[in-house]
């Protein structure tokens, strides 16, 4: 079956019952989404489908044909990080870093649909995602910074300036 991931279409040869997470990690060799619990309790596997945050460990690919799947790899690259990635680098918001891609995708889904989300909304939205190293304060700071960076990035083309 065909899956649309980060703007490209991929032909995937897998049992339709396979959770999206395994297809992303093995068939498409994308590292960002992580296996944490397989139960929808920790959020390490969070990706976006049609702009909404979902648990990829629980979502079989049979539900996803024709839908837009986005992972951290779709937010930017190591040489040209997107605003969400840039914010996490600037705030040094990681310890082991294992939970971070899931955090980023849940935050991305919020800020894409609600660019002016309040601090409290950010905190509430991240509730499903667990961090064990205790990096919470920095994760919150990074998402707040991403909120500003995303606005700047959105405005840049209109004013004819590009963010370096």
């Amino acid at each position: 079956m065909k899956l649309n991931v980060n703007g490209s279409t991929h032909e995937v040869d897998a049992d339709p019952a396979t959770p999206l997470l395994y297809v992303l990690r093995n068939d498409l060799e994308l590292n960002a989404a992580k296996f944490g619990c397989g139960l929808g309790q920790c959020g390490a596997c969070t990706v976006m489908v049609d702009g909404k945050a979902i648990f990829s460990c629980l979502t079989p690919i049979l539900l996803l044909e024709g839908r837009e799947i986005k992972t951290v790899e779709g937010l930017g690259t190591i040489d040209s990080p997107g605003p969400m990635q840039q914010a996490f680098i600037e705030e040094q918001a990681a310890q082991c870093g294992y939970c971070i891609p899931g955090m980023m995708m849940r935050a991305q889904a919020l800020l894409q649909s609600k660019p002016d989300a309040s601090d409290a909304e950010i905190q509430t939205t991240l509730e499903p995602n667990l961090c064990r190293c205790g990096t919470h304060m920095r994760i919150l700071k990074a998402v707040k910074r991403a909120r500003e960076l995303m606005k700047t990035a959105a405005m840049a083309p209109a004013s004819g300036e590009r963010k370096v």
Partner: protein
Amino acid sequence: MNAPRFPNVTRRSLLLGTGALVVSFSLKDHAFAQEGELNVPAKPPEPVATGPKLPGSLADTPSLDAWIRIDADSSVTVYTGKAELGQGTKTSLRQIAAEELEVPPASINLITADTAITPDEGFTAGSQTVQNSGTAIRNAAAQVREILIQQASSKLQVPADQLKAQNGRIVGPDGKSIGYGEVVMTDMLHVDAQPKSKLKSPDAYEYIGKPFARVDIPAKVTGGPAYVQDMRLPGMLHARVVRPPSWFATLKDIDTASIKAMPGVVAVIRDGNFLAVAAEKEFQAVQAMRALTDLAEWEETPRLPNEQDLPAVLQKSESEQGVVAEAGGDFTGGITTFSAQFMRPYQMHASIGPSCSVAHLDNGTMTVWTHTQGVYPDRKAIAQMLGMPLDKVRCIHTEGSGCYGHNGADDAAGDAALIARALPGRPVKVQWMRDQEHLWEPYGPAMLTKVSASLDVSGKIVNWKYDLWSNTHSARPGSAGALLPGQLMASGFPPDKPVMNITPLGNGDRNAIPLYSIPNMRVLWHFVADMPVRVSSLRGLGAYANVFSIESFMDQLAKEAGADPVEFRLKHMEDPRARKVIATAVEAFNWSSDPMPEGRGRGFAFAKYKNHAAYLALAMEIDVDKETGKIRIPRIVSAVDCGEAVAPDNIRNQTEGGIIQSLSWTMYEEVNFDNTRIMSSDWSTYPILRFSAVPGTLDVHIVDNPGSPYLGVAEAAQGPTSAALANALANATGKRLYNLPFSPARVKATLGV
């Protein structure tokens, strides 16, 4: 344990020297010296050969080329036996090496723990990476720099004292220069380190103590391969284990033909009570694991204690008693005596990513990629388990999800090796499932503590008795019996016999001696050798429960003495660095004894980790909702002194993390079990802190001491955080909680609402 481990240093002598603790680890038994939490066979320590002790881990691996390599193209490679566990090692060690070698940190190729190429530095544990490996690399780098200058001197015909190292070159007064690569010669660095190095002075630092971004973060936030979970080798199979439903369960006969017939399944491996499946694709392995779980029948044995009864069970199970400290001997003084009892349940590491490992048996050599804390001990255990010679097993550290002590990493490595042995030529990745991590990792041991103390008429503590009941906090590999697969397989390696080790590094007794000046003191460890729950080291070991007990009790005594809790501590504290850290936290917090609104309280606590590592003081303000028992934390302020601060932002990151993790332990965490099975199998049955409970603000102030020795910091916050919360709770409600965790139900019950 008959032989004394530290003939020249007794607990007594440490106590008498309060505040000026000098510990000499002149033992060649390096794995022990690394960490002090190992079960070491009872043999007398073998003193180092004559001569002064080399700094840090150079004492065990003195050759300079074991640490630093410079190639003809001037590229610099630094080797460490320590591992990146998310604590920033790859960054801080580069900063240290770069400082003395005069090259940019980013240009250094850093190789971490690998049994084929790096020094054996035991375990990455106990907040000792910068302290031991950092010290070794710093000194080795400085000595290499001086050797390069000497060599350049003869090549350039310029006296050495007129030359300096600068950005990868040796530069003379007239601008003449030569690259490092042009002066290196074969075996030039194959010399032993000298005891003294020409270290740069703090005012000349370019990298140490400067803001420096973590090198591993960009890949981690852009989907780069960063973890063992991200490894994909050609022809790699995916494996899953099927664990017994409970400890001591035995597997009945099983016909696995139906599993072998499932799509993609390559092998079903059974060896005694060890059961696993390997398949071409990961989800095929998961489906086969589920089917195999349904198929397997086990004989279970109810052997777990009643969890409601843990304090009594621990006391009943005492097998041995050890004196941790004794000073003075007069326990009759004082006008009033107070006592209390504290309890810490079993708690788990519970990393967000379950344990994972890749193993490959190729041409008779087993290579294992593992997120273990100790590649060398893990290799030894795996080699013994497989009956292979040590030199045919190679363990390579590859990052995993957060590591807070001895978790499932070594076991998963053992699983992978055992499965890969059955499938020679094909790499095998084993990924544990969530319930396997929760149910089978070794837990932080349950602990019971009892303390009593007397105050004199001036409100000073005149005597102090402290008793703790605990298992060992170390059951690490080294032997195959420390690995789950080693225990489960038919040949059944028995776990190592737990041994009580009382050393200055501390184990269950870590931080059991209060740092306060108390003339008459007695601290005992009631050692519990056996409990039917698997335990090992969890961040801080006994320090978490001991500091919780001591610092809770200090507040109680302060209240009895009618003193402010901070003032009361200072009255008993001589160590000037401790006083300074306390003063820094208190001032930043704006501490006072003024009354607070209903339901609000403030709490303070302090500890010097292990009594010889980082100093940490912490104050917090909390709100308690009496109706629900829920605790909110508007603000936390802490101050930390870890000697010379190499990577300040990393110290903050580690300390923030330690505080939040300790809040989670303290407010929520407890492993539950019935008489047969562990019940805490996932995040719903073992809840941890989520975003809704994070503090409003959390500030970490670093008290820097440039030029002074590095003091381990990564675990310093675990103890003080718990006690500060307990003290704030008592301050807010007038009621003290003695049993961890402070779950809403327990808070509500204690308040009697």
